[in-house]
């Protein structure tokens, strides 16, 4: 039996004496999509940092692709949240992708031919060919995130770690990015860990939810975890979970504003206009 791409056993992370989450046990199977939810400061991004090898567990153990996490592992792809680049930062979209292929290599300043081919193929695969030569600072958030996914998939990873990749994208671009990630995990059995404060854009894809709140956690399918009872227990206060058509709305959580899809979508549209 082959080992799961991500194995967390009794994993505890404490920062400055405060435990972010403790005794976390989670095995993520190939091709599985796990959404990591929870309020700000619950340690969602820290979990990704542990899986990336940037932070060590305080207790317990973690294996990524069968090994201790280490920085720069080719088995791991990483998609960060969209950020603003300077309009005249001297790099193109294509160069951002290429940095994922050889940006860690010392030596000659230019990419090898084989590397350039891989970059080209990755850009085509995410449908970014038409804008890859534009300066990075002049791309929209959605275009930038497509290139991020191309960059993350270059090394043919068995694990894809995404940190709020949909933040500040409009609905159309959110859909496009989610589709790309879904296609990848189906075609290559890549396990996906998807940190988000907003489950609805990815709800149809989510196999399991990891919900982190104030040192406690819950794991299960969305139907199991996203219930008033489970979340009230987790938060230690009364939480209601509403289901409207195919959306889940959490009411009463500490940052419920960001969990309300209507409100969040409105903000996104506003930011784009």
């Amino acid at each position: 039996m082959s080992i799961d791409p991500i194995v967390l056993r009794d994993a505890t992370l404490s920062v400055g004496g405060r435990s972010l989450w403790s005794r976390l046990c989670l095995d993520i199977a190939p091709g599985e999509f796990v959404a990591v939810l929870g309020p700000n400061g619950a340690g969602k991004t820290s979990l990704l940092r542990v899986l990336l090898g940037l932070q060590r567990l305080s207790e317990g153990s973690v294996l990524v692709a069968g090994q201790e996490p280490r920085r720069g592992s080719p088995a791991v792809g990483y998609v960060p949240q969209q950020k603003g680049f300077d309009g005249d930062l001297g790099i193109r979209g294509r160069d951002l992708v290429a940095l994922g292929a050889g940006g860690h290599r010392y030596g000659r300043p230019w990419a090898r031919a084989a590397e350039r081919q891989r970059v080209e193929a990755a850009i085509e695969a995410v449908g970014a060919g038409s804008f890859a030569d534009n300066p990075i600072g002049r791309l929209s958030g959605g275009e930038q995130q497509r290139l991020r996914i191309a960059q993350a998939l270059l090394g043919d990873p068995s694990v894809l770690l995404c940190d709020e990749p949909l933040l500040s994208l409009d609905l159309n671009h959110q859909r496009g990015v989610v589709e790309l990630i879904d296609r990848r995990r189906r075609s290559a059995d890549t396990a996906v860990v998807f940190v988000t404060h907003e489950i609805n854009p990815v709800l149809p894809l989510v196999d399991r939810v990891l919900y982190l709140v104030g040192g406690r956690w819950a794991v299960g399918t969305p139907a199991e975890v996203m219930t008033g009872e489970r979340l009230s227990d987790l938060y230690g206060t009364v939480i209601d979970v509403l289901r409207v058509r195919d959306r889940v709305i959490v009411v009463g959580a500490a940052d419920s504003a960001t969990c309300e899809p209507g409100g969040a979508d409105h903000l996104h549209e506003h930011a784009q206009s």
Partner: protein
Amino acid sequence: MNDIGIYLQLPFAQHALIAATLIAVISGLVGPFVAARDMAFAVHGTAELAFAGAAAGLLVAGDAVAGALIGSLVVATAIGVLGDRPRERNSAIGVILAVGLGLGVLLLSYYHGFATAATNILFGQIFGVSTRDVVVLSVIAALVVVVMAVIFRPLLFASVDPEVAQARGVRVGLLGFVFVYVLALTVTEAAQVVGTLLVLSLAVTPAATARQLSANPLRVTAIAVGLALLAADGGLILSFAFDSVKPTVFVTFISFGGYALARAYRWLRRDGRILLA
């Protein structure tokens, strides 16, 4: 107008031309990273502190150049340690700059020799470049070129996308430190040619111009080196022709002229397309 050919047979002019060329190459090379890392103030700070280092060198060993170079390494260490976070960096440089200049003035007041050697660094002394200076400069230029070539891609990664670079295994903090040292050496050498006060015209302006014209990192670097060469060598040769004007003046004007033209071009092409994609 003078005959430039006659000048070029004179050793002082040849030394000046070699020095200007070497400094243009290394300034053009570090320039795009100065821009990407938003470190123009670090250039200005280390350049001014070359004066304090020169004063210390004069007092201790009677050698302004060696003092400036060793001083630049001290300054680089201070910037690297105090300003490791980009947001704090400019305040840290301001603090170091202020105390460094105060120290420079104090040291100079104890020096009873001819202080021109230190003040020369403020305005440049291109026609005073000795054979020894050329040798020192060649070694430093070779070092800067090799280091920049070797770290080019990881440094680019760390400069434009530090979070992902770190996740991909790039030593972001270490590279930042290395770059500050390379920058300090480059700026200190450039200060001797164009002067502390005008280093920016070789280390910042050509790269700013290049970024208006291209978004390909290698081309941006090539254009920045080319423009720095044009400004430094062109300015020097023009000053042979019109010897009432200091070369520094021509260097800064050529450098700025290129920038103004590039901005004008970008303004005319408001669709955002770039010339040399």
